[in-house]
């Protein structure tokens, strides 16, 4: 990507924003955000991520996108993931384990049913959406 002028930056921002919004509104796309800060990694986030990739394949789910993000700060619930998909509320799950992954996939992704007990709350509203 080339160096940008002020105009370029603004156009680029609109482009990526539109693209990310499209992903958010894409009824066929499941996004999984995996908290990959030091605390998440120490608690086993890489294993959960690997299990998610493997289990999605096993369940024939192809329309899933895994994204690494920083830490939400919920150390007591690490490793933490967030699932964003159509017809379900954005849901944060933790503490995650590889063993819990099939449940999350079968219930949340396929049956559109929350997996109780592991649902955590977003610690604060998003100030960027004010």
């Amino acid at each position, binding site marked *: *990507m*080339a*160096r*940008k*002028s*002020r105009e370029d*930056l*603004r156009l*680029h*921002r609109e482009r*990526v924003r539109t693209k*990310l919004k499209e992903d*958010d*509104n894409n*009824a066929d796309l499941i996004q999984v*955000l995996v*908290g990959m*800060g*030091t*605390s998440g*990694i120490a608690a086993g986030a890489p294993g959960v991520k690997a299990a998610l990739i493997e289990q999605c394949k096993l369940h024939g789910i192809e329309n899933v996108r895994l*994204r*690494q*993000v*920083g*830490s*939400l*700060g*919920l*150390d*007591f*619930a690490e490793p*933490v993931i*967030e699932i*964003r998909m*159509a*017809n*379900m*509320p*954005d849901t944060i799950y*933790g503490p995650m384990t590889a063993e819990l992954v099939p449940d999350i996939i079968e219930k949340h992704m396929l*049956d*559109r*049913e*929350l*997996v*109780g*007990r*592991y*649902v*955590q*709350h977003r*610690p*604060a*509203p*998003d*100030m*960027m*959406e*004010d």
Partner: protein
Amino acid sequence: MGYSRYDLESPYSQFCYVCSGVGCEQKKSEDLYRNIKNEVRNRGIGASVQVVRTGCFGLCEKGPIVKMLPEETVYIDVKPEDAAELVERHLVKSEIVTRLQLKDTARRPHLEVKNDRGHYQKQVRIVLRNCGKIDPENIDEYIAREGYGALDKALFEMTPEQIIEELKLSGLRGRGGAGWPTWLKWNFGRKAAAAAGTAYVVCNADEGDPGAYMDRSTLEGDPHSVLEAMTIAAYTIGATQGYIYIRAEYPLAIKRLETAMKQARDYGLLGENILESGFSFDIEIRLGAGAFVCGEETALIASIEGERGTPKPRPPFPTDSGVWGMPTVINNAETWANIPVVILRGGKWFARIGTENSKGTKVFALTGKVNNTGLVEVPMGTTLREIIYDVGGGMQEGKAFKAVQTGGPSGGVITAGHLDTPIDFDNLAKLGSMMGSGGMIVLAEDDCIVDVTKFYLEFSVEESCGKCAPCRIGTRKMFNILDRFTKGTARPDDLWNLEVIADATKKASLCGLGQSAPNPILSTLQYFRHEYLAHIDDETCPAGVCKDLMKYSIDAEKCIGCTVCARKCPVACIDGKSKELHVIDQERCIKCGACVAACKFDAVLIA
């Protein structure tokens, strides 16, 4: 938010969240959950409403909590008996049960935010706005969330004076410990730079306080916010080079910073002719070896220059003479992360959050005996009670609260009597603690104040650079005395000795490390003198932590002479015949506790 993508074609058209965090569970949320489930089933709406138990909402004092989705109605103080009404009216008739609804009027002024939705929460995230939201290794995700918009605005629409004015309006103060107004620092730096012809900006990410990791998390989760902020500062004061001083023990943060810097350079957001504005600036990473004192700004400067990281007397302050003798603005990583928001939203927007003299938010690393440990970001002015009992989910295992340690090795404790003090720079200082970097360790009844204080002094002894005698010798002496307290060998005049040395070390040390190393002692002596005294006068540790002060004995009433303890004792110091009272030889007992665990009759007493 994704709720906008939520439509009613899903198998469930509604979700009912019932908090089953520890706090709510103690208030019968389990019964509530069962009642709601039954009510839902009895009314035949189980196919469209899913009732789930969830983790803590961060509102435990108002628990049990129920939240309905997709409406996002929050109900508080819900009793098991309220289930029928809630289900009938909210879920069946789609009415709001106003009696139980959380009302926004409960919010206090320091929480004021424009849009009400979701703002029942205690946390406000400015510094951590992107953490957990964006991929820190993808610059586009940062840009999409207004990233580099502040730089754009600063470079093309604002003069350096206007930027400083905006900072002044914001009331932002440094988050690295001392709480120095950021605008003032930049203004000094700018004036000195004009005379010197060049200047530097530095990000302090040394984060040596043993209980703190907010800078690490910020840099790992949102590295571009710090790069953007430093570039804005460089433009403001006239610097062309910046340094990020980060401890080598933070490999992930370093890697993500490096990736971020490369991406920013590729985009022309760092380096020559930024955004074709004619302004050039670049950043280098300098790795610290992990010495606490290197976080002190003059030591940090020496370390950047490749010298030994030892402090120098101030003045001159870094804003006059910093890196390579040139004017230098040093800010803490968390301070930097606030800057883009201040520029984009304006100083006035920022200043609405917080207290009179402490604006914005503070990130705390909440650890110790609370249920929800982790990073929390709350508006200045939030009380300790809210942090511990709401955000923190209350005390672990229902233990009694004793104190909170803030400010790490430079800070002190806040006690139960001050749980309702709004936390800001000035109030913490008044209580004899300090904001410090934001470590917040919650202590319970079973934590020994003397032992905790000893831990911090041991840290200071190890981290003292040894340059000046008051600190080098003073910290060692104070540690030795505290050690005697915990071993039961303290002398009657030791309390007095401790105070005299603490006072001298505070006054005569060269840098902040020595000057503040006695703080944990002075603060705990103020609030917990009785606990120190118990260690000398009664030779007991009230919290039951200091092993050497514990005495194990066997209760004659309870012991049935089963001999189990005698066989389990590793040093064979328990005597007694079968079916007769057993006795512990105090001289030989090593206080391992094996007998306590072994006795099925609770006959072994600890005092």
